[in-house]
Structure formats: C-alpha cells, structure tokens
C-alpha cells in the first residue's frame, strides 16, 4: 500500500504539468485584451500599455509565458496579480475560507445525505421516501441563487437567527447557512446514491446469509449493507470536494464569501492568466489528494480490492 501511495503522489507531477499547460492555453485563447481593459474608457498611450505587457510577460509567445510560470512555480514564486498583490498571498487568504466552507458542506453531505439515504433505502415504498424525493427535487429545480436569497431573507433578515452574509467573519456560525445551501444539490445526489446502493445490497446473498445466521436488522444494515454500499458514495463525495472548492461562485457571491471560487471567476474575467493557473494548481492538488484518500478507503472498505498488482 505504501508503494501504491508513493506511486500515486509521483503521478501528480504529470497531472499538474498537463493541467497547467491546458489552463494556460485556454486563458491564452480567451478573447479580449486584459491590459487595454484595465484602462476602461481612458485609453493611455501604447507605450504605457507596453510597459504593463512587458511586466507580466504578456508580450511574449504563449510557450514562453508558460515556462515563466513553471520556473516561478518551482521556486515557489507564483508572480503578482495585476493589482500588484503576490499570487501566493491571494491563495493564502482565500483558500482557508473556501476550505472551511467546503468541509462544512461535505460534513452536511455525509450527515444528511448518507443518513437519509440509509433510512429511505431500508424502508421501501414509504411516504417518507416520497417526501425525501420531493424535497430533493425542489432543491435540484431551484437555482442556488434563488434558494440562497430566500434562506438569507427568511433566516437572516426576517427571523434574524443567522447572519445574512459572511464577509470577514469566517466562523462556523456565519458559514452555517452558506454551507447548507452549497451542500444542497450534492445532498440530493448522495441520498439517491445511498438509497439505491442500500436497496441493491439488501437483496444480496450475504445479507440473506447474515440474516439466516440470526443477526438482527440493525447489525445487518450497519455492519454489512452499509459497508458494501458506501463505495460509490465515497467516490461521489471525494470527487465533490474538488467541485465544491472551485465551483462555489454563486454561493460565495450570495453570501459575500471571499473564497477561491470568486477569485477564480474574477481572474478569468480579467484575463489574469498567472492567477488562474496558480489557483487551478492548488485545486488540482487538493483534488488529487482527495481522490487518493478515496482510493485508499476502497481498499479499507473492501479488502478484496488490492492495488499495486494488476
């Protein structure tokens, strides 16, 4: 197993090189001139714009820009934003905020998603199952920006039991509502996934065997059914972590959270290649680690799965 993990960590190198190259190419291919846009309705002299282009290597060919980035990354210098801030500083402030939001959301996914999934999976064809299904549908059909604002108004403005926005109060209390909203859609997937897995496994031979052995229902479900049902659920949640880290743009905007999603969006809109690529590099590393943990968990949950030999 140690060898397998070592190999996987080694594999991150080509992934990061591949991803950053791809992202740089995409940013480079985007339309519009980021330098001209900085000046809005007051275009300066060409010479002044040339100074900025030179400073950010924008006057060089694509491959050179990419090599500049790679070289900088190797020496842990990710460069500066157009504003003049160190990119590493942008990441250092926004990453912990997003991480807190994402992990809280994952926590709710597990708690609510897996919990309810087991209940509706075990109790076949009950009213409760349909109620959960309907709630799931509501969450899927209403866009996050609407759901977010309705909750913000109800709990923040009307009842005043939760804060309306996060801003610079990054703590559990302020993050509670955004994390729940962010988890919403994923919770629907986790419920459906857990439910179908539990249902499938309730009919499996080993469950019959376990029951035949005289085990009580609770033990059968918790020790046998769940263990065998969790694999796809864990896969989904592991993959979702990456999506939640980088893709929470709307939730972050609704609740004024200064996270990676916002930074990524505005960097793309402004055409700040270096910032985009650096943020994605961080995301891809998080993503790879999350998936590695998931793959290791496979082997733990299902001892028959073996890595390292094929």
């Amino acid at each position, binding site marked *: 197993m140690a060898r397998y993990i070592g*190999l996987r960590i080694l594999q991150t190198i080509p*992934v990061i090189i*591949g*991803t950053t190259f*791809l*992202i740089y190419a*995409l940013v480079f*291919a*985007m339309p519009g001139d980021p330098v001209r846009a900085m000046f809005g309705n007051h275009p300066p002299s060409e010479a002044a714009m040339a100074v900025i282009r030179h400073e950010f290597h924008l006057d060089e060919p694509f491959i050179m820009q990419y090599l500049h980035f790679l070289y900088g990354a190797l020496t842990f210098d990710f460069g500066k934003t157009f504003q003049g801030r160190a990119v590493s500083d942008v990441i250092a402030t926004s990453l912990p905020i997003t991480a807190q939001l994402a992990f809280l959301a994952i926590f709710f996914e597990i708690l609510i998603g897996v919990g309810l999934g087991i209940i509706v999976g075990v109790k076949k064809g009950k009213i409760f199952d349909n109620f959960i*299904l309907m709630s*799931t*549908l509501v969450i*899927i*059909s*209403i*866009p996050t920006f*609407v759901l977010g*604002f309705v909750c913000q108004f109800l709990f923040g403005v009307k009842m005043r039991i939760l804060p309306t926005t996060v801003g610079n109060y990054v703590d559990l209390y302020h993050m509670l509502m955004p994390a729940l909203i962010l988890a919403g*859609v994923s919770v*629907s*997937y986790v419920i*459906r*996934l857990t*439910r*179908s*897995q539990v*249902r*499938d*496994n309730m*009919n499996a031979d080993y469950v*019959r065997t376990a*029951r*035949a052995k*005289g085990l009580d229902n609770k033990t059968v479900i918790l020790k046998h059914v769940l263990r065998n049902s969790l*694999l*796809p659920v864990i*896969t*989904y949640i592991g*993959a979702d972590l*990456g*999506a939640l880290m*980088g*893709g929470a*743009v*709307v939730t972050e905007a609704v609740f004024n959270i200064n996270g990676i999603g916002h930074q*990524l*969006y505005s960097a*793309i809109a402004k055409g700040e290649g270096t910032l*985009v690529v650096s943020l*994605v590099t961080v*995301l*891809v590393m998080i*993503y*790879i680690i999350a*998936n590695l943990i*998931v793959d290791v968990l496979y082997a733990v949950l*299902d001892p*028959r*799965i073996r890595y390292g030999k*094929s």
Partner: protein
Amino acid sequence: MASNIEHFVADYDTDLSQVDEFHTEKEVTGLFREALAIIIKNPLFWISSVIILILGSMALFPGLWTSTDPLYCPIGDSNLPASSAHILGTTLQGCDVYARVIDGAKPSLAIGIMTTIIGTAIGVLIGTLAGFFGGVLDSILSRLIDIFYAIPFILAAVAVLQLFESSDSIWKVIFTLSIFAWVGPARLMRSAVLSVKQQEFITASVSLGATNKRNMFFHILPNAISPVISTATINIGAFIVAESTLSFLGLGLGSNTVSWGQDIANARDILVTTPSVLLWPSLFLAVTTLSFIFLGDAIREALDPKGRR
C-alpha cells in the same frame, strides 16, 4: 425471519448434466428479456413514461399545445397576472409565460437528455476500462479524469463557446456541458467495477473461461451500472439548470431560443414581485427530473441481477 428465505435447490431427480449445463447464448437474451418483464409490471415506469411522452409532444409538436408566439413580447404587457389571454401571466418583457414554457421544452429536454447520454456513455466506457484492466491504463485514465475535474467550468465554457460565437445552436451548449459530463460517471463506474470484479461470480465466470470482453459487458457492467443510473437521472435536471447558469454568464443560448434555463435565469430580476415567472419553468423542470428519476429507478431495479429474485 428465516421463514422468508426462498430455496433454490433443484429437484432431486434432475439429471446432473442438466444442473451443470450452461446456456451461454440464452443467458444474454434472458438478461434483457427478464428486465423487460420486470419493468412492465412497475407502475412507476408507466407513470414516468406517460409524463415523458407528454413532455416529448411539447418538444416535438409545440403547435399542439399553444399557438402563441413565445418571442412576441410587447413591453407594455410587462408582468401581467394570469388572465384568459395569458393563462400563466407574462414575463418582465411581456412574453406569454405559457407559450414560453411549452416552447422551452425542446431545447431544455434536448440539452438535459443529450448531455446525459453523451456524458454517461463516455463515462461508463472510460470508468469500466480503468476499473477492469487496472494498472497503467487505470493510472492514465484516472489522471485524465483528475485533469478534467480540475479545469474550471467557466474558463472552459468561455473558451469553447467563443469558437461557436455566432451560432445559436443548442449543440454548442450540449458540447460544452459534455466536456465535463463524463467525468462524474467515469469515477463512479470505476469504483463500482473495482468492487464488482472482486466478487465471487466474476471469479467463477473467469474460471469457466469467459473472455475479458464478455465479462466486462455481460457480467460486470450490469452489476456495476446502478450508481451511474442513480446519478444520471438527476443529471438530466442538473444539466437543464446548468444551461441557466451559462445563460446567466452570457454563454448560453441566444435570446432567440426559448429555454427553461434562460427563463429561470431571467426570472431572478423580478423574483420579489412576480415569483410565478420563476415558478412555471422550475415546475416543468422538476416534473421532468422526477419522471426521469422514476424511470431510472425502474430500469435500475429491473437491470440489477441482485434484485431479481
């Protein structure tokens, strides 16, 4: 509890050669025929099919449902309440909500269904290959999945959609969404295959001389597809909403094409005063998703060999 257990034991006078016999050809047809037999007995299958047929008729023959032009929007008719002329009222721009909901069915269903089919097909193929063969192939395919997961959706959408800048075709949206739609199913499929291929019946089938191809498609795939189906049916709804996000970012369909996603995105401006403009396209979206979830459940239960007793 023990009384519930059925017994699968051949009659004592059965010939032994009969017990050991394999009907390899017969089993193939049997798998799907059996599934069909199960599915037609499922009321959920019928309910969802009828709803999907109704939605399909809206998509293919909108003229059956309305004769109002959904793109005729006099600004003087802005935000009218429901009346005999506009049975569901009008939008901010003065368009007829009912006509727009009907006309929006075609692009919305096309985007939801096509993206799901394309994404699921590619995802299932790649996930199965990675999980089944393992080793180097698994490493390469899994890392490819990692790379695609890491690309920010918005960035790729901007880059891809500007290639089709002048086009209003729904295919550009389907194409853009499909770039990402295969990744989730691929990972799910890989994990399910990893788990299924260790099970006794696969070992048994291998020891009986089944080929890799045969194992993959007739033994592992049906046993491993269940989680993918569960998420794919939700995905149909999620992709229809994703088109709304694309419209919101100025990357979706043009305003010449009516879609539920666009109307949901547009409704946000008047959500406070006229929530009904949001309600109708969302309701159609919810019903569509529900039907496909039901249909998916029915198919999944019918296909799953474990549920077949």
